[in-house]
């Protein structure tokens, strides 16, 4: 197999891994948008808080699981971080967004920006602006691909990357199960179709909205831990860039559309890897924005979304 093909495959793997992270975060955006028709600017910062939650809880959790990096330890950190982020998401919704239900859209948008900036800057104060080292909860190393696979053996997949694939896939299935096969999921779908009708049918709007926020935030928290395993340097501003790209991913796939968010995430991840590897890393961020502008011009409802008619 020619060297270029190997290089391409490697970039593809890199892109898929990064894309899965985007997908997890994009799901949070899409869930909240589906139910509340608003973009939670602060979502990227929940991702950051998940990473920091991991930073602080990891030592104790790892000790509980026998000390040192291990599978159960990592799983524990992941689950705990998801819970913490879910709680944070619900708290933010209750404190900052609920009082604004029914207010003009712009008001909520500005509040969301305020929350995001607050989390980032308070984070800089509390955690310090310098990057911190994320503890090793699982040993990330490159997997040995057997020589019998021929040229493919020069590819590198890391344990971290495999974990990302696995956990993302598993979480996606779980999400699908919740949304399609549980009553709360049904309530979420009902709310996203028609909030008034849903509440008339007995859906407790507040609880469902809280649940949605919690769910989306938990996914962001998972993304935070998975990222920190591969890139063990965390800082309070780590959510800004990733949050923005995940948002673009959600829009690309069709905001409000769950499979769309996953698809969008993967696409953006792969696109980024290819642009950086083959064209010019300086355009890494610009290309993502360009995609956003293009999709909004050509098909605003996204790849998998259905055009929404605005009723007057």
């Amino acid at each position, binding site marked *: 197999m020619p060297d270029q093909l190997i*290089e391409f495959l490697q970039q593809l793997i890199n892109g898929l891994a*990064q894309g899965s992270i985007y997908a997890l975060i994009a799901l949070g955006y899409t869930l909240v948008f589906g139910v509340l028709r608003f973009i939670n600017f602060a979502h990227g910062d929940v991702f950051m808080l998940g990473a920091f939650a991991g930073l602080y809880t990891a030592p104790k959790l790892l000790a509980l699981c026998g000390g040192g990096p291990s599978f159960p330890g990592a799983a524990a950190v992941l689950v705990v971080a998801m819970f913490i982020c879910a709680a944070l998401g619900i708290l933010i919704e209750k404190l900052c967004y609920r009082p604004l239900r029914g207010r003009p859209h712009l008001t909520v948008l500005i509040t969301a920006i305020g929350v995001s900036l607050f989390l980032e800057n308070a984070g800089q104060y509390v955690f310090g*602006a310098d990057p911190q080292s994320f503890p090793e909860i699982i040993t990330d190393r490159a997997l040995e691909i057997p020589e019998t696979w021929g040229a493919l053996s020069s590819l590198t997949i890391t344990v971290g990357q495999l974990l990302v694939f696995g956990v993302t896939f598993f979480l996606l299935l779980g999400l699908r199960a919740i949304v399609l096969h549980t009553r709360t999921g049904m309530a979420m779908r009902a709310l996203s179709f028609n909030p008034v009708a849903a509440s008339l049918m007995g859906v407790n709007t507040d609880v469902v909205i809280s649940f949605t926020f919690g769910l989306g935030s938990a996914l962001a928290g998972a993304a935070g831990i998975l990222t920190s395993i591969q890139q063990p340097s965390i800082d309070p501003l780590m959510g800004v860039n990733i949050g923005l790209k995940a948002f673009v991913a959600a829009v690309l796939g069709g905001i409000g559309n769950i499979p769309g968010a996953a698809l969008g995430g993967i696409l953006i991840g792969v696109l980024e890897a290819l642009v950086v590897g083959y064209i010019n890393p300086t355009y890494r961020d610009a290309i993502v924005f360009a995609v956003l502008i293009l999709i909004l011009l050509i098909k605003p409802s996204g790849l998998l979304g259905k055009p929404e008619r605005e009723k007057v």
Partner: protein
Amino acid sequence: MIRQLLLTVFLGWPAFELLQAQDEIPVGEYASLTGGSASFGQSAHKGTELAIAEINANGGVLGKKLKLITEDDQSQAGQPATIVRKLISQDKVVAVLGEVASSKSLEAAPICQQNKIPMITPASTNPKVTEVGDYIFRVCFIDPFQGTVMAKFARSKGWKKIAVLTDVKQDYSVGLGEFFVKDFTANGGEIVRDQKYSTGDKDFKPQLTSIKAAKPEAVFIPGYYAEVALIAKQARLLGIKVPLLGGDGWVGDSLLKVAGNSLDGSFFSCHFSADDQSPKTRDFVAKFKAKYGEIPDDMAALGYDSALILAEAIKRTGTTDPEKLRDAIAATKDHDGITGKITLDSARNASKPAVILTVGNGGFQFVETVAP
């Protein structure tokens, strides 16, 4: 109510300052104490503070104590100009110390020059800084020198094919990379891959994949510690085993904490080695540790040296008159600093050796000194 309180404080402050002016010599410092560059700013500030405290403990200068007035530019462009104006016109400082980041020094230097107040930057390595005018000095070497130092080192190791990975968002990184490439290729070396990244990036696998494919003998990464640590980790994961090379931007608290042992066997140039066994260095490290509870890095050492050079100049000229002070600073020769023997050349840059360190055993080890 708050507005009134703020205005009172804001307007009353100058009066307060004036009352203290008599038996003290005000020295201004502007640094990034908060924000993205806080790590460097805080280090340099601590070094400067230690120096001033020491000088005052030994009786001060010209019979008066030095008063260090520090302002935080919060790592934001636009702020250095404002706060340097404040230091000069409000606090009436006799000289200004700062900044670490060249872009901030470039912003403040014209103001110091126009107001004829000497400015000494501890660590800005962009050649343009001192070109602003004859009141602007620096106590560190400049990028052209640092780039060639590493190129020479690479050649001395017999490496002929090197890949370069620069941070396009940082002029420092781009500058260092350019000078390295120029010197390396002029002497027969080959740059097999020239990749780029941006400050704040976390994932470098695409660039590293490309570099790996080019099979270099070493990789030159003249960036800052936050990204370098991640780059090193990911490079090792991807199977890049060759040594990594870098510059003084590598020096930072979290470098080894994040990189673990993925930087072992790598080399970088900087201004100062904390495990230099000379009595002067050992003394400095001990004092710094006693005061701040941490080992000083080269920003701290440079901050220390810049303050001392200023104090020496004031002592030598016996006055704080700006013109005479400027001339005295320019005449600094063989000042025995923590970061080496410092002589200010005619371009007001420090002519002094660079130190090359290697990484291993959880710390840095001294390799060699490279003279200009």
